[in-house]
């Protein structure tokens, strides 16, 4: 059994008392020790999915309307709040997009790391502090004994993201959810953080769920990739297979819109038009108004996932065809 099994997960936002669907029934699995990448543009529902798995939707306007999330054999959505919190920050941990604002500015980083340890482990403050120093060393922060008493504003963005990672690793999680962990960092720092995550995965054997809008980041780090569009997973495959042979026109469009440096281009490829708005109704395939290979059937029938190979599927009536 996979470490994390998400089945038919649907999420809706309450707007003026009406539930507007945002994530429309997605299913995927994360095997222990592997990395799943979820890619898609802003508003496709990838962040909401990660927050739903982590259990951070509570108290907001967002509701899980159906589906199940089974983690390590436990149905997370059926757990009482107290037992749910026992999983959060312990077996499952999360890092966020904005390292500049994700740490509490009024507490020293050491206190913020030990808070997590003391919440889940029965150890003394002194032991927790030892562990925190060890974690800072693990995420390659120089002079961890000195840095542990720094306030977040005394650290750079890259350092803060390292602290966030240290905090997430505090209780040896089985799954690390990383929601755009490098988006707010500059490129050289990005690469170092991604390398660090890969190294830590090799050392600890944890699984990673990486959410990104950046196909480059995904290609570098993931074993499996799920591409989301308008609240659905429209293509999923092992990373090597996906990048070798993209079946869905949207995935191809995403790749074509990345700037390349090895040849000269006048202008970047863009996917025409825009994503349908939240709450907008679309008949047929949600991508068909923007699709180069769309035919009449695409406007009428929403395609089911079609297997391109045993491990590769795409929600397209004409997977793998070249665009017209």
């Amino acid at each position, binding site marked *: 059994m996979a470490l994390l099994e998400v089945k038919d997960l649907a999420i809706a936002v309450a707007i003026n008392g009406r539930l507007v669907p945002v994530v429309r029934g997605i299913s995927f699995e994360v095997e222990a020790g592997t990395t799943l990448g979820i890619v898609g543009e802003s508003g496709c529902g990838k962040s909401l999915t990660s927050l739903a798995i982590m259990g951070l939707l509570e108290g907001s306007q967002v509701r899980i309307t159906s589906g199940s999330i089974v983690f390590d054999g436990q149905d997370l959505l059926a757990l009482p709040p107290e037992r749910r919190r026992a999983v959060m920050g312990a077996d499952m941990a999360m890092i966020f997009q904005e390292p500049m604002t994700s740490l509490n*500015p009024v507490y020293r980083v050491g206190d913020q790391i030990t808070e997590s340890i003391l919440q889940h482990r029965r150890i003394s403050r002194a032991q927790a502090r030892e562990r925190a120093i060890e974690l800072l060393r693990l995420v390659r922060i120089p002079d961890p004994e000195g840095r542990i008493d720094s306030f977040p504003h005394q650290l750079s963005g890259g350092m803060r993201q390292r602290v966030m990672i240290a905090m997430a690793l505090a209780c040896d999680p089985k799954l690390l959810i990383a929601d755009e962990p490098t988006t707010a960092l500059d490129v050289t720092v990005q690469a170092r953080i991604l390398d660090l995550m890969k190294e830590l995965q090799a050392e600890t054997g944890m699984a990673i769920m990486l959410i990104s809008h950046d196909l480059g980041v995904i290609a570098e780090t993931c074993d499996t990739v799920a591409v989301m569009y308008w609240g659905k997973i429209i293509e999923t495959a092992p990373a090597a297979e996906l990048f070798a042979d993209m079946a869905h026109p949207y995935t191809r469009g995403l790749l074509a819109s990345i700037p390349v440096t090895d040849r000269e281009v006048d202008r970047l490829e863009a996917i025409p038009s825009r994503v349908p708005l939240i709450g907008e109704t679309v008949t047929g395939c949600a991508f068909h108004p923007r699709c180069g290979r769309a035919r009449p059937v695409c406007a009428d029938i929403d395609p089911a996932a079609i297997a391109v190979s045993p491990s590769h599927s795409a929600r397209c009536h004409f997977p793998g065809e070249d665009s017209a």
Partner: protein
Amino acid sequence: MLAYTFKRLLALVPTLLAASVLVFLFVHLIPGDPAAVLLGDSATPEDVARLSREMGLDRPIYVQYFIWLGHALQGDFGTSVFFRTPVMDVIAGGAETSILLAVLTMIWIIILGIPIGVMSATRHGSWVDQLASGGAMLFASVPTFWLGLYLILIFAVWLGWFPSSGFPSIHEEGGLLNLRYLLLPSLTLAAPNAALIIRLVRASMLDVQREDHVRTARAKGLHPARVAIKHVFRNALISVAAAFGFTFAALISEAVVTETVFSLPGVGQLVVQSILRRDYPVIQGVILVIVCLYMVINLIVDLAYAWLDPRVSLK
């Protein structure tokens, strides 16, 4: 922190000097010769001239200022025209009432303002929140004298639970029980300010609640109450602390009204009566004391601010 404190203390000096110049000139802005005012209508011009010389009023004004300032620095604000006793003794007479009233009021503001504000924010949108917000709105807009009169009517006249006016010192018979005289006045004085704190705590907690680091705290699996206090309230306190300085300024002027409504022998009453009696030395003394107090309170607020927010002292 120590260097910051020292720097702030040093910054008080020019402000105090400026305040002292204003307070000193205040008497000279009033038409007429202070010596003539002192001696009354029946004084002969010779008497007035003699007193003027005795008081140093014939000297240049800046010399007068420095002489006055020299005395003021030693706590000597001259003699009250009305009481014929040193101004400092007159002020000290009202100080007990005013200090106790201020302390009780601050206690009310804190025990009413903070818990209700926190509850209002953590149960945002519930009936608790609506009741608290509505109540806060009401009490923030009710004038102090009106509330005071109503409290007297209900709790002193109808129910007879508390005395309606006056305050015998806690050194008199009854001891600390005499504080019951200050219960209604302190509640009157606290109501609008506690209401302000409720609204402020609520608003800043709701602001902080949306911040990313609160999500991080929740992701650690902390109990919601712990997140609310340790991460949300603690950070919201930074802006609430800043408001305490303003609250204190409001308290001073509201205390004058409250002490009058409840006939309390405090400094506020003293100011009002001294103005009516044209007792300028007392007015000068009281204003200077209030200015000093206000500056000290603001210094404490700023230090608290730097202590609450580690990002401040570095700037």
